[in-house]
């Protein structure tokens, strides 16, 4: 009953004209970003982050959240019509979605993706309503040892769930931790690795690094190949957007399974929507009575993953809002937006800022409804936008990145930082290093260090403090299991085999 009363408060906040407008802007920008290959939700949120500095926290966070889940909707459009994922979580949708388009069934594919996303998004938001306050209450008793162990588990999980080499992912995580120690020591305030640069006194900014690694690097990788400039939107008349009874019958359980799977995977640290989509596809293929259909236009191969990736976006908010720990890059950016306004997410966040928490939840219901209403009738518009030549789009993407970084502090040095990380990010992509462990470690590093040192101060140097606290011991044990199991061949083969069945 409390949750319903709070939801009422949330709707009273979310339905204000200002918040409705920013919710709308967020979901439209998110859909656009999802439709257009080359700029994912991370890049888009990085671009809009400086804008939120000028807004009140509630509309700002509502807008950024809208971009995140809006991108999941938009990504399915390019996957189905162009066979190029608009963003990473829609990679799997290309497999069967594009096949459906080639069979003249683009409409039902787009329709089930939109409806599945709506249903999953709603289920995810309901889950968020109950889980986040519950987890927040448990976390009130967390101290420095628990926070250190939680950040340790978070980083090991991110490396565990990475698709490439685990050593490389660990390397990136450690590099990110080192990068996170640039600037003022979080405990004593002493300068480290800043070499007298005023820009580095406050550390490496998350926004220039994120925009470099995920914005600039992505576009540099895209322009390498001529194919991106000659992409063809599959010419088919898009009719019959409403799936028929047969389509609903085939998609019902994939949507339900995808929703719950996606929600719980989204809570875990790591690229939740991407992992959720892959896991859903692999699961549906395994459970199907006709696995041979997959890869040849099976609607289940669209319904499940698209539902999973949307539900995961709701799950991803839970560790951030309840524990103050971002589980992925998008959440790290949203955390940045909150902290700019002096709001610290964590166990006391929900009690201290009920209008913000419940307002964001209510806005997600509204945003999901807007997306369902927008995406289907506006398919024609998105197709026209897809036809804008990439040769014109990519300079504009660079422009937005450059302005976005400059607007933070009007500091040209941050543009150089972004470009350096853009080139580094490009090299990382070519050599199989993932950027997500680096960026997450950059954000979590100061929390991890200050928790570690505070715990040692409390225990007078006794490392056993991490084991004497039961929650900390449990989290540390899980973290070490994740860390060590990555290097045991049989564990690794089983995990990679399950995900590789998607290929």
């Amino acid at each position, binding site marked *: 009953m409390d949750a319903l009363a709070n939801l009422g408060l949330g709707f009273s906040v979310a339905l204000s004209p200002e918040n409705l407008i920013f919710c709308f802007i967020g979901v439209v920008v998110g859909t656009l970003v999802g439709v257009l290959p080359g700029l994912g939700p991370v890049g888009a949120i990085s671009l809009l982050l400086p804008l939120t500095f000028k807004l009140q926290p509630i509309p700002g966070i509502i807008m950024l959240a809208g971009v995140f889940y809006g991108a999941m909707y938009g990504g399915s459009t390019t996957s189905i019509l162009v066979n190029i994922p608009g963003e990473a979580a829609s990679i799997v949708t290309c497999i069967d979605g594009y096949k459906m388009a080639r069979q003249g069934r683009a409409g039902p594919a787009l329709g089930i993706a939109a409806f599945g996303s709506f249903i999953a998004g709603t289920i995810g938001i309901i889950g968020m309503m109950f889980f986040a306050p519950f987890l927040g209450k448990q976390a009130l008793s967390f101290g420095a040892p628990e926070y250190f162990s939680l950040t340790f588990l978070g980083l090991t999980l991110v490396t565990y769930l990475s698709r490439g080499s685990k050593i490389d992912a660990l390397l990136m995580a450690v590099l990110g931790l*080192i990068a996170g120690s640039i600037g003022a020591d979080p405990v004593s305030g002493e300068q480290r690795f800043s070499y007298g640069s005023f820009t580095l006194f406050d550390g490496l900014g998350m926004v220039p690094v994120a925009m470099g690694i995920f914005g600039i690097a992505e576009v540099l990788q895209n322009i390498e190949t001529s194919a991106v400039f000659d992409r063809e939107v599959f010419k088919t008349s898009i009719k019959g957007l409403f799936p028929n009874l047969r389509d609903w019958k085939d998609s019902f359980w994939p949507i339900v399974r995808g929703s719950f799977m996606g929600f719980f995977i989204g809570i875990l640290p790591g690229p939740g929507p991407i992992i959720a989509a892959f896991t859903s596809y692999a699961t549906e293929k395994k459970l199907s009575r006709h696995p041979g259909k997959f890869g040849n236009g099976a609607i289940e191969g669209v319904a499940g993953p698209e539902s999973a990736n949307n539900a995961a976006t709701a799950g991803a908010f839970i560790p951030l809002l309840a524990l103050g720990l971002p589980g992925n890059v998008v959440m790290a950016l949203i955390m940045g937006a909150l902290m700019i306004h002096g709001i610290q997410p964590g166990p006391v966040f929900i009690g201290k800022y009920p209008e913000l928490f419940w307002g964001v939840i209510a806005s997600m219901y509204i945003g999901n409804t807007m997306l369902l209403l927008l995406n289907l009738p506006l398919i024609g518009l998105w197709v026209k936008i897809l036809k804008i030549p990439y040769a*014109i789009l990519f300079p504009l993407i660079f422009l937005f990145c450059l302005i976005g970084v400059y607007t933070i502090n009007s500091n040209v040095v941050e543009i150089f930082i972004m470009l350096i990380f853009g080139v580094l990010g490009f090299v990382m992509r070519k050599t199989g290093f993932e950027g997500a462990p680096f960026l997450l470690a950059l954000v979590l590093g100061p929390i991890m260090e200050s928790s570690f040192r505070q715990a040692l101060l409390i225990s007078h140097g006794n490392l056993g403090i991490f084991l004497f606290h039961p929650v900390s011991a449990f989290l540390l044990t899980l973290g070490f299991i994740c860390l060590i199991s990555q290097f045991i061949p049989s564990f690794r083969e089983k995990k990679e085999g399950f995900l590789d069945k998607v290929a």
Partner: protein
Amino acid sequence: MALAGLTLEEASRLPFGTLRTPQSGFWPLILGVVLSFLSLIHFGGTIKKRAEKGTPFWAEPGAWKKVGSVVASLVGFAFLFELLGYLIAVFLLIGFLLRIVKPSKWWLVFVVASLSSVLSYLIFGSLLSTPLPKGIFGF
């Protein structure tokens, strides 16, 4: 490994403290040691992989020229941005990018570059009151 060495070297200049009272060099030193260890493992793996067939770094011939010229133009923009002012710098950047990778027609370059610089100035400079540099020409 070079980065690990740099980290250890810088960390050694900072006070380490003790386990009871860890100080600012404590954390970077631990990370430097971990990074050294991981780098050694990675280096060993790289040597093994070199024996196997590798994929070329660049996706297609000539890709390095496209990427290199784009990066150079972005760096040039960063250097000239505050000197030339927002409008001129953006116009030149967009124009260059539209010609260098997949050359567009000149009229299109002019239109897109002009519209980009003016519209973005109106949105960010006027509407959102972001302080954008005026440069030596005063605009």
